């Protein structure tokens, strides 16, 4: 009897451990590409980070067309210049756009190109002249189902533009008390730039792959109450996505926070 109880306790213990390692299970390939495999509209008042601390709730703007045939142009100065432009009112501000609200913008646009070996003909040569078009883009409050917010699938399911784009994202991190000495750790495909409470936090330049904790901000304090996190991702011919989390001095995820998009 004693052995049975002991075995039962061990089994329960193992079951409790499983969720902690669930992010490290084998993953069967899944051919579906519907948006709800990657993210769903936010329907609850708040969300919490996932088991690894990744921030999943974001207000995402439909992609802004920004044709680039290669990601090697994403130098620090280039992305500072591109993200330094104003695309919409309230950009980097404390007040978030409303879910479902729209912006009107004139964007550069590359008409369909001839591909040769999967790459535009003349790859590496002088960039073509792009056309311009006026577009209306909508904000969507979404909850990512994955650690990485799959902007590519957001784009392919909701819009026409999938490559050569800029994606803006914003979320609010709510804290019950000041949390000092944390860092915003980001991975993105491709380059990106991130701001915390209006201050530049971290920049990921170059032709980036989405790597967990690729770049981290200097130490910062998440203040009690609202903290607004803005991000912008730029990509040429790549599958745009990003993953963000706050980590403490030991590299552990900060999870005693909630996320909203208001």
């Amino acid at each position, binding site marked *: 009897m004693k052995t049975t109880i002991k075995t039962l306790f061990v089994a329960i213990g193992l079951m409790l451990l499983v969720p902690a390692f669930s992010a490290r299970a084998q993953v069967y390939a899944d051919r579906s590409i519907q948006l709800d495999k990657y993210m769903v509209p936010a329907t609850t008042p708040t969300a919490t980070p996932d088991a690894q601390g990744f921030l999943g709730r974001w207000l995402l703007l439909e992609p802004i067309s920004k044709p680039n045939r290669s990601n090697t142009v994403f130098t620090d100065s280039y992305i500072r210049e591109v993200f330094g432009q104003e695309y919409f009112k309230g950009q980097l501000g404390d007040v978030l756009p409303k879910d479902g609200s729209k912006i009107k913008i004139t964007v550069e646009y590359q008409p369909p190109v001839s*591909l040769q*070996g999967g790459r535009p003909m003349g790859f590496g040569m002088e960039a073509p002249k792009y056309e311009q078009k006026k577009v209306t883009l909508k904000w969507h409050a979404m909850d990512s189902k994955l650690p*990485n917010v799959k902007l590519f699938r957001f784009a392919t399911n909701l819009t026409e533009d999938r490559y050569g784009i800029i994606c803006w994202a914003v979320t609010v991190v709510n804290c019950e008390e000041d949390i000092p000495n944390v860092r915003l750790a980001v991975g993105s495909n491709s380059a990106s730039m991130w701001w915390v409470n209006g201050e530049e936090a971290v920049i990921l330049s170059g032709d980036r*792959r989405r*790597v*967990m904790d*690729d770049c981290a901000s200097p130490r910062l304090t998440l203040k009690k109450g609202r903290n607004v996190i803005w991000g912008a991702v730029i990509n040429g011919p*790549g599958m745009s996505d990003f993953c963000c989390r706050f980590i403490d001095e030991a590299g552990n995820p900060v999870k005693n926070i909630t996320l909203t998009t208001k």
Partner: protein
Amino acid sequence: MKKNIILACIVALFSLSAAAQVGSPYIHDPATVTECDGKYYTFGTGAGGLISADGWVWESGAVRPGGGAAPDCIKIGDRYLVGYSSTGGGLGGGHAGRILTMWNKTLDPNSPDFEYSEPIEVAHSEMDEDCDAIDIGFLMDDNGRLFCTFGTYFGNIRMVELDPATGGRKEGAQDYDVAIDCEASSMMYRDGWYYLLGTHGTCCDGANSTYNIIVGRSRNPFGPFIDNVGRDMLQGGGKMVVAAEERRFGAGHFGRIKVEPGVEKMSFHWEADLDLSGRSTLAIRPILWKDGWPEAGEILADGNYKILSRRRGYALELTVDFVRAQGGMRGFFGRGQEQPVVVVEGQKLEEVIGGWPEGIIPARCNDYMARPHQKWTIEAVPDAGGYLGGPWYKIVIEGTNRALAAAEGAEVVTVPEFTGADEQLWAIEQLTDGTWRIKPKTVPGCCCTDLCLYSVADSTPTLAKFDFNNDNAKWDIKMR
């Protein structure tokens, strides 16, 4: 002055030449270099591939039908399984890819047995799913299970188990996602670990290609593959295996070559070799294993070295008189009274060479004392060919042409002049633990080809069979 500059350029070119395969090693996305009947073969994207008789000098000539992208090759039993892929073409292109495999009894296109079987599909990707089924990489583990990985930056790297008898999918096998944002994946199996290798960075942009090869590992062939800091490769994790060198950029498409215990090599490509017109070229480097992780070793660069036995740490030297050097012989007292401080010159070659015999001088090992008879210059010998992933080297006393040579009776001596004779040519290969094996091309009077420089006693080098588990067979080669 002009002549001196030209001469300096030529010397610089030769000093760099040891780092790259020679001949016409031009290829992109090479299959794992595979030996067949004493020759080495690799295939690339598009048609064809390269052949080498020695593993160092490469020419085009390998034959692979089907075109497509990024093939791989593995020997199973007495047959060769070749995989390749057809696709719409990478990022920005279509992603309906097909992974195909086919058999051949030989890789030698001149053999009467050379005939590929009909290719069969083992995996595919549909137009827009999170995978682009190209870039196949094979693995057969120590238990005889066959796997292949495939995929590009468009989504996930996947893997599936194959049937080693047919080269097709194992019945009931399922695809697994094992990594994200990689290209050119491959696998290794070692000490119960499955290693997944992928290529990160920018492809196909010449000297601006940041392509680099990274690795994660798992106890299970289907993952999860975790890197050295605990990140899943599905979260972008990966530990660096090989990245750019000073003159070569864009390492991609890893393939492991197990030569013998303690000797492993990796084949891959450079996107751009600045010494070869910036073209994409075949690369071969030793694999080192450090704390259970693979990393790229080195092809020994031309330079001045000391050669130290792993057995004792003694230095290889000429058997000549030890000549006392000036400096510091003042006993234990009076230290601190020296004013001013002066730099004492080390012993120079011209001070001692007159006392050396003129003919053959045996080699031995001794305490390293930075004396001229212990200082060696090691250089690749141009146009002498090589072995898998390395050139033949000459090993001479610095400032002289006195060369280390294999001698009758499987002993090691030095001869007054380097002539390029086979017994004066040495293979110098980095072993999986980072030490070096030094092996003569031939040994006079002996048909053995597997003898290496060996410490039979602390001070006595000889030639004997290589054994990776024996420090007598290993050397440290340290630049001076």
